[in-house]
């Protein structure tokens, strides 16, 4: 009989609870197979990927801890990062998934009823933590529920109060800031002046260039729309209320468009921002054609690492404001904790027109290119 897989999308917070769930299942199987009271170690397979800068090593402490705390051995099936999605899709399509795997919520919902994944609903009584999680966060239950009503994965809830967190950061060439004696901008007007100053110093450059789709999580419309309306994305909770709002209906959105148009027409924004490939974007910076950008935040430390919020990692912010979002990158569960939400930095609410609004960023030093975040 084929072992069905427990599909989990893990947050570090959930690790203990989840693996407990697994061992419950394994225990049942074991009892059936080898007789009750057998201490034969159970082995589960788990699909993970190597990252190019460091491969998965089986002697990592967390793996030992999992084994020690649960009595379950994990057989790590390691694929390379860029092949991970393909491998997973094939595994799902051929029903040969590993015992534990991290699918997208959609994959879990669609393939769960096909018996690729285990219906967690049947096991919730054995996993009180998981049960509580689904009860506390109905939106988690919603994204994990398949067409037949079964629950097929444990989603990660990313987000924070009213979607006010940021998963992007502004970066700027610090050497240029020092050279031209520029102060980090704190609001949109200053940001405009900042770009303008850069442009004046280097007329043949486009100070702001981005390498993201125009819309989407960190798209330019999202970033600027949020600056002026406080609403993340096109449809989200308004910053000051319980209401869900369509961002373009917000009065600030026009300002955002006007502002973007101003940057665009003064060539402060790269005229090709819509078309740039990753390599072209990188070239812009390497050749000094651009100096300011906005990037997906993924590895930075939380500003308030010690606070309640920081310790909660990328999960489970209180109730009604939580946003459920698919993870952009499937992460190693071990690394999942590193993907913390940035501390919410409130944009000024959309008040009067013409008033400057603070822009946000977070101090964080990034890899190469001498790019540094503008510090406040």
């Amino acid at each position, binding site marked *: 009989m084929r072992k069905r897989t427990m599909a989990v999308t893990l947050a570090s917070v959930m690790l203990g609870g989840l693996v407990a769930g697994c061992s419950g299942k394994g225990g049942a199987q074991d009892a059936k197979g080898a007789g009750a009271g057998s201490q034969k170690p159970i082995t589960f397979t788990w699909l993970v990927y190597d*990252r190019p800068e460091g491969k998965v090593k089986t002697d990592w402490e967390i793996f030992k801890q999992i084994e020690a705390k649960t009595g379950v051995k994990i057989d790590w*099936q390691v*694929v390379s990062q860029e*092949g991970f999605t393909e491998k997973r899709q*094939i595994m799902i399509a051929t029903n040969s998934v590993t015992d534990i795997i991290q699918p997208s919520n959609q994959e879990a919902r669609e393939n769960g009823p096909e018996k690729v994944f285990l219906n967690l609903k049947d096991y919730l009584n054995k996993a009180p933590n998981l049960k509580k999680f689904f009860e506390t966060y109905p939106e988690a239950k919603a994204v994990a529920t398949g067409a037949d009503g079964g629950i097929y994965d444990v989603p990660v809830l990313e987000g924070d109060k009213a979607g006010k967190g940021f998963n992007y950061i502004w970066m700027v060439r610090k050497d240029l800031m020092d050279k031209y004696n520029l102060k980090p901008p704190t609001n949109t007007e200053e940001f405009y002046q900042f770009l303008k100053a850069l442009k004046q110093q280097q007329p043949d450059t486009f100070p702001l260039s981005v390498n993201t789709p125009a819309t989407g999580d960190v798209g330019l419309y999202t970033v600027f729309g949020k600056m002026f309306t406080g609403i993340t994305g096109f449809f989200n909770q308004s910053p000051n209320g319980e209401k869900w709002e369509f961002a373009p209906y917000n009065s600030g959105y026009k300002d955002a468009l006007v502002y973007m148009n101003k940057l665009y027409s003064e060539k402060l924004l790269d005229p090709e921002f819509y078309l740039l490939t990753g390599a072209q974007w990188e070239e812009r910076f390497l050749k000094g054609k651009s100096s300011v950008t906005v990037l997906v935040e993924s590895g930075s430390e939380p500003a308030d690492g010690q606070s309640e919020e920081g310790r909660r990692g990328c999960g489970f912010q209180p109730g009604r404001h939580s946003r459920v979002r698919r993870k952009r990158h499937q992460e190693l569960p071990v690394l999942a904790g*590193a993907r913390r939400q940035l501390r919410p930095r409130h944009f000024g609410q959309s008040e009067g027109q013409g008033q400057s609004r603070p822009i946000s960023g977070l101090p964080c030093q990034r890899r190469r290119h001498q790019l540094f975040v503008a510090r406040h």
Partner: protein
Amino acid sequence: MKTRGSFGSKLFDAVNIGLMIVLIVVMTYPLIYVFSASISDNAMVMSGQVVLWPRSVTLVAYERLLSNPDVWISYWNTIRYTAVHTLLTLIVTSAMAYPLAKKWLPGRKTILLMAAFTLLFSGGMIPTFLIVQNLGLLNTIWAIVLPSLVSTWHLFIMRTFFEALPEELEDAATIDGCSSLQVLIRIVLPLSLPVLVSIGLFTAVNQWNSFFDALIYLNERSMYPLQIMVRNIIIASSNVQGEGNTAYIETLKYAMITIATVPILCVYPFVQKYFVQGAMIGGIKG
């Protein structure tokens, strides 16, 4: 014979030579660049200062790769897969092509038609995967070797070649007491060296460069061929997320490419003469 060419023919020569030089440059530049970049300093490569010759020569990328046991394991796997695959392909393809070259073979048309059918249609990835899985081949060398063992295209080239061999040779061998198998091994195959070498080379290069089968059929790192590693380093590292030391990552790519390419590059010159011959013969007679 000495001929004084007309102006037209001199012009032709000049243009021809010029064109060839351009072609040579276009072909060799990337090779040289990759090699130069692999032994240059990372910062130089990143900032685009390496154009043709290496700058600030350092072997740190190679040190990093060669001290990584995974590279050697992958290397061994690739060599293993390539050698076994090529050998079996040649045996199986010639064993199938030889009878098909005989006009008197009953059902020859049907078999050829069925073979040709696979040129146009295939089962698709998932069904193939399911077959491989149900045969219990997953995570073994056979998952890599068996599904792509016979290429119909190569089969047809080889069959055409065999058909062109004079039948009298085989008759003579038969009269001297050879069985069919002996005729194939002692007479036909030695005479077919060009086609065998070129098909062997095609297969070997293909297998050397392939990653997809390995990606879907293999589950353990210790089984992965070199190309998986190359792909990981080249594609995934363009998107490194910032953890760890990435100060060598650009040169690492080029060093990896060099390491993965050099062996197969070395094979080419030695089989060049067969290669040209073999590739042509299939074409003309087909």
